[in-house]
């Protein structure tokens, strides 16, 4: 019991305490300074605005729109990165041919191509899904390649000696072996997916949390901007936490092996 308390105080208590102290300092700073609320609102004003958008249902609506874009963008980015990553990891030739394009594509700021995606794909959800997928693609791709290349060659020899099929090699060896590194990429990708969707919404959208930020800015309602930004942070943290949970579940065999 004492151990549980100690562990959770460290894991939950300190972050919550840190957040509360941060809020308190923010409130004191904005109350004592004469910074107007359209430049930097007080936490109490942001809280009031949060309650109002929860009450009228608009926060939930816009959050669900962004969440949908993020999940679909993440799924698309993952799928593209895993398939491409597999072939790149397996063939040096494919890597040599595709690497310049992939690396070059990463040097293009997503904000620069987002307007083009709106022109090509229209102002609907598709352009937001694609901006999200594009930003997810690279970190997951790199980790997929690194993960697959880290599989020890002796294990391939072992499966060959057991006459394992290609499918069995993928399922029994490559996926489990690459999983830890791949999940590291997914952690980064999950948070980047939120940024990608919001960039898409900034360019042209009439719904979603990025749109809510634009509305707040357009109306000098800085409290609304803060509400939308904090909701985005919560969304990114929730996605990150989900990946960590998934990681704990999928990699539990590693712990058992370590303990045995």
């Amino acid at each position: 019991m004492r151990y549980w308390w100690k562990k959770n105080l460290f894991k939950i208590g300190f972050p919550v305490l840190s957040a509360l102290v941060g809020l308190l300092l923010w409130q004191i700073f904005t109350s004592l300074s004469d910074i107007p609320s359209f430049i930097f609102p007080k936490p109490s004003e942001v809280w009031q605005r949060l309650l109002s958008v929860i009450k009228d249902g608009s926060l939930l609506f816009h959050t669900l729109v962004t969440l949908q874009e993020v999940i679909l963008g993440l799924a698309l980015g993952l799928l593209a990165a895993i398939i491409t990553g597999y072939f790149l990891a397996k063939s040096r030739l494919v890597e040599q041919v595709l690497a310049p394009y992939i690396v070059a594509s990463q040097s293009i700021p997503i904000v620069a191509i987002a307007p083009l995606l709106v022109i090509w794909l229209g102002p609907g959800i598709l352009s937001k899904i694609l901006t999200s997928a594009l930003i997810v693609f690279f970190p997951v791709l790199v980790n997929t390649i690194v993960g697959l290349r880290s599989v020890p060659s002796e294990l391939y020899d072992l499966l060959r000696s057991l006459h394992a099929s290609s499918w069995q090699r993928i399922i029994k060896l490559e996926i489990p072996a690459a999983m830890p590194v791949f999940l590291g990429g997914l952690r980064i990708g999950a948070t980047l997916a939120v940024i990608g969707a919001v960039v898409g919404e900034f360019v042209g959208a009439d719904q979603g949390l990025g749109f809510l930020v634009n509305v707040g800015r357009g109306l000098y309602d800085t409290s609304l901007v803060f509400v939308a930004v904090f909701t985005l942070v919560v969304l990114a943290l929730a996605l990150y936490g989900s990946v960590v949970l998934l990681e704990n579940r999928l990699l539990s065999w590693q712990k058992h092996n370590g303990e045995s």
Partner: protein
Amino acid sequence: MKLPKIVVILAVILMMVSCVPGMPANLVPGELTHVRLPMGYVPNVQYAPFYTAVEKGFYAEEGIELEFDYSYETDGVALVGANDLQFSLVSGEQVPIARGQGIPIVYVMAWYSEYPVAVIAKSDQNLKTPQDLAGKRVGLPGLFGANYVGLRALMDYAGLDENDLTLESIGFTQVEALAADTSQVVVGYIANEPIQLAAQGYELDVLQVADYLELVSNGLITNEKTIAENPDLVQRMVRATMRGIQYAVEHPQEAYELCMNYVDGLENADQDVQFQVMEASMDLYQTDPYGYSSPQSWSNMQNVLLDMGMLKHPINLEEAYSNEFIQ
């Protein structure tokens, strides 16, 4: 002795970085008052009067050293409201919206006489009156800003609401959206999108908001503190800007050439189109008298914003603008 590769690479990078020309040393302002002016948009020929006023020394003669700042319009409003800057160029609707949020800005000089927003369609869409917007797919940058306000003003005039047409937020891609027929109608600035589209050979129908409703348009703002503590600076700023407007209108070719010093890539752009954009902007400058905004235009703007819900309560319009500095 052979240096390690990494040291050589770092040394080369360092040399390249050190070769990048630095920011010019701060000019010694002398007796000049330094004014940073947020323009609300990228460098563009529409700002010809301001470039002209700098180049002809009108600001310097008034004791002002002007620095252009191409940040967002809303940032300009917030910075002026917080008294971090003294002036900004903004679209007319920003003033009631900002004052409705308690931001103490004051509009002191009209730059455009007419609200510059228009709805544009290819002629096969048969957009002859605002009522023809009914049933159309209308693309606009977003549900905020001058384009949205202008469209809603036209819709109000035509007795339409948002259920009568489809609004699509397409970012600043109006030219492409209309050319590719992804939007049947787009909302843009009269001095920009219609000229760009016409230059590509499209026959267009264009309805300008100002032909149906008088709304306060783009102009110069300051804040209450600057007016109270330094009215002379406001007077000098307005006077120099108005001289720039007048000079640019009277010498369009020279004004266009002066724009070359400020608008990167203008030499390589389509000169005819860019000159037309500047001329169309000049048509908008010509308020009578220069710099004047009418009480009716303010009252109409307030009503549109109240109808849209962008303004929750009426504001005291007399505090929002002043024509005294254009005298």
